[in-house]
């Protein structure tokens, strides 16, 4: 039986962590993810978990401690945001290449500068090539559900990759919403225990982790890691199918919202999708064939599947909530455009960078995007392929 509750995204993650009862949690505070270890510290203080909770001296060390714990044979977790994720950068790559399935909660926040504590995906997008699986969520329920699925995906023998559960800083992390929690026992049964085959503390078979790999071996390791990320696609869907069977809520690589006959589509991520859905509903009521695709899984990127969904569209706007400084559009645009390149019937596609540093995104703003798509579909002219929206005029 689900339990109806009202929780913030951070508390939803902390609750999921309590239910899973990980072996090791290494924490370092940073806004807006700090509440996650704070809630957890109270669970430790009240004896609700028997986790080794270590308060380390930096994010570099929190992830490093998680690596040590995972390699030693334990399930290890941490949480961070923004500069904290950037500070972990080096260790993220080591986690992935050492095939240590740490689960990292990220309350996504803008990167400095100027310094800013509000939401965009500058932090997580900067780590898109780190080898972590990345799951994104529209609301607190999805954050919680993604977290419940995270360990099973990451720890699967065909995958063995670390995973980021991303939520939108403040918007999702701090806003309190209705949520359906699952029973502790049901969560424990669903997630299961972590029992790796080989680990540092195994008596029978000492293990060596983190070798020097010369040119004659390095590429094999990298290719194996690339295959693991490809394997993750099937595992993500399998775990989602079991999740739906167990808890009744359905997840895929992305959510297609009113896309059946859509001519004008938006590709978007996170909480902004909720706002854009309201615009889609209004436009549909007005007879506009508008639809939306909300990306849940950014790594591995579901390129083929996404291209299939977009193939029937006339015009697509990719909404990037991070600025990649490529002078050629944001990361979501690069992935989406690349995925669609080999389609027989390619939609016209533009990139719109929006909402940086917590800049508001409204239903009206979303409607204006569809207005532009309608014009592109009608004239066949895209205008500038890469624009920013919602900022002050110079």
């Amino acid at each position, binding site marked *: 039986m689900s339990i109806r509750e009202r929780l913030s995204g951070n508390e939803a993650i902390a609750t999921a962590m309590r239910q899973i009862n990980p072996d090791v949690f290494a924490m370092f505070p940073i806004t807006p993810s700090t509440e996650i270890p704070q809630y957890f510290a109270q669970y430790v203080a009240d004896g609700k978990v028997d986790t080794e909770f270590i308060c380390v001296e*930096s994010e570099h060390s929190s992830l490093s401690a998680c690596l040590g714990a995972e390699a030693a*044979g*334990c399930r290890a977790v941490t949480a961070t945001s923004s500069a904290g994720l950037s500070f972990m950068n080096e260790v993220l790559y080591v986690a992935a290449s050492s095939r240590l399935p740490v689960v990292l909660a990220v309350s996504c926040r803008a990167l400095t500068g100027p310094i800013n504590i509000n939401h965009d995906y500058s932090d997580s997008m900067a780590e898109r090539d780190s080898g972590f699986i990345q799951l994104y969520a529209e609301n607190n329920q999805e954050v919680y559900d993604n977290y419940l699925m995270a360990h099973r995906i990451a720890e699967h023998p065909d995958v063995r990759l670390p995973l980021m559960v991303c939520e939108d800083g403040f918007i999702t992390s701090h806003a309190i919403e209705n949520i359906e929690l699952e029973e502790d026992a049901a969560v424990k049964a669903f997630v299961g225990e972590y029992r790796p085959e080989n680990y540092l503390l195994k008596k029978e078979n000492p293990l060596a982790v*983190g070798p020097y790999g010369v040119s004659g071996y390095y590429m094999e*390791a990298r290719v194996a890691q690339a295959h693991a990320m490809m394997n993750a696609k099937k595992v993500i869907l399998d775990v989602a199918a079991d999740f739906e069977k167990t808890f009744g809520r359905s997840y895929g690589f992305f959510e297609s919202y009113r896309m059946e006959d859509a001519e004008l589509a938006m590709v978007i991520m996170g909480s902004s999708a909720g706002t854009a859905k309201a615009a889609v509903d209004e436009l549909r009521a007005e007879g506009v064939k508008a639809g939306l695709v909300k990306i849940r899984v950014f790594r591995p990127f579901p390129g083929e599947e996404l291209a299939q969904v977009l193939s029937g569209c006339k015009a697509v706007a990719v909404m990037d909530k991070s600025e990649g400084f490529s002078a050629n559009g944001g990361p979501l645009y690069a992935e989406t455009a690349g995925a669609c390149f080999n389609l027989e019937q390619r939609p016209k596609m533009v990139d719109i960078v929006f909402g940086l540093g917590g800049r508001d995104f409204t239903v009206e703003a979303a409607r204006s995007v569809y207005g532009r798509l309608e014009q592109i579909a009608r004239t066949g002219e895209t205008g500038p392929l890469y624009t920013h929206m919602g900022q002050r005029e110079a």
Partner: protein
Amino acid sequence: MAYNLKEEMNKKDRFNPGHRLCAGCGAGIVCRAMMRAVDPEDRAVICNATGCLEVSSFQYPFTAWDDSYIHTAFENASATASGVEAAYNVMKRKGRIPEGEKVKVLVIGGDGGTYDIGFQSLSGAFERGHDLTYFCYDNNAYMNTGTQRSSATPRFANATTTPAGTESVGKKQNQKDLTQIMVAHGSPYVAQTTMFGNMKDFHEKAHRAIYTQGPTFVNVLTPCPRGWQYPAEDLLAICKAAIDTCIWPLYEVVDGEYRLTYEPKKKLPVEEFMSKQRRFKHCFKPGNEWTIAAAQEYVDKKWEDLLMKCK
């Protein structure tokens, strides 16, 4: 049990031949001696910072280590070890490791990975009080990248980033006294040693460090033939000169109590140490006599300070 070199050398090596360390490098001796200090019935997990030792002892698909080993990066060996220690604690608590089964967490890094880039994670781990022993093989510079100066490089040493030249007499600053800094962390056991004689000093300190509950630190002066520029066979003579000149005094600090473990019968002048290595060659040029006098003055002061602490 009294130390017996023959018995110690009859133990099975837990750091094995076939590693790629240079001839005349001290690090291999440190590793073998460190592993001899782990009781044969106990296991160990070695957490190693990036450096010469890492690339030389675990080059895929070979490892020189009998025990479990992990390398993650340069600056985080102590943090990685914190995670291993936490895992050990929780697995014991949850019954996944039986009572009575002991695993010692050993951390090893060069001076770059310890004094400099790894200092934050080292300090953090010691403040938190994890049960681990950190061995620093201090070879006085970033040797894996080719002898760049570190905060452990002694004043006047010729390093590739502090070369001697017409306007330079080598490194400008004295060595950071990391051993004292580790004492200031309140560690229950901190020691300085090096390799000499029958290795008794090293062994006893290493064993005591490993079997003292809490974060313990052993700083080992570890000559590097490439960086210090000496013939491989001079390794032990250089170590002996370091302790007899009091450039590297041997002492231990147990719960804050200082104890000198070696006092030279006759304190030798610093030239005895410096003249054996070409990294100090420029100090012996006419006009640079003052460098040796300055080095002597510094060593004398540090030695007097230490004697005061040991009283």
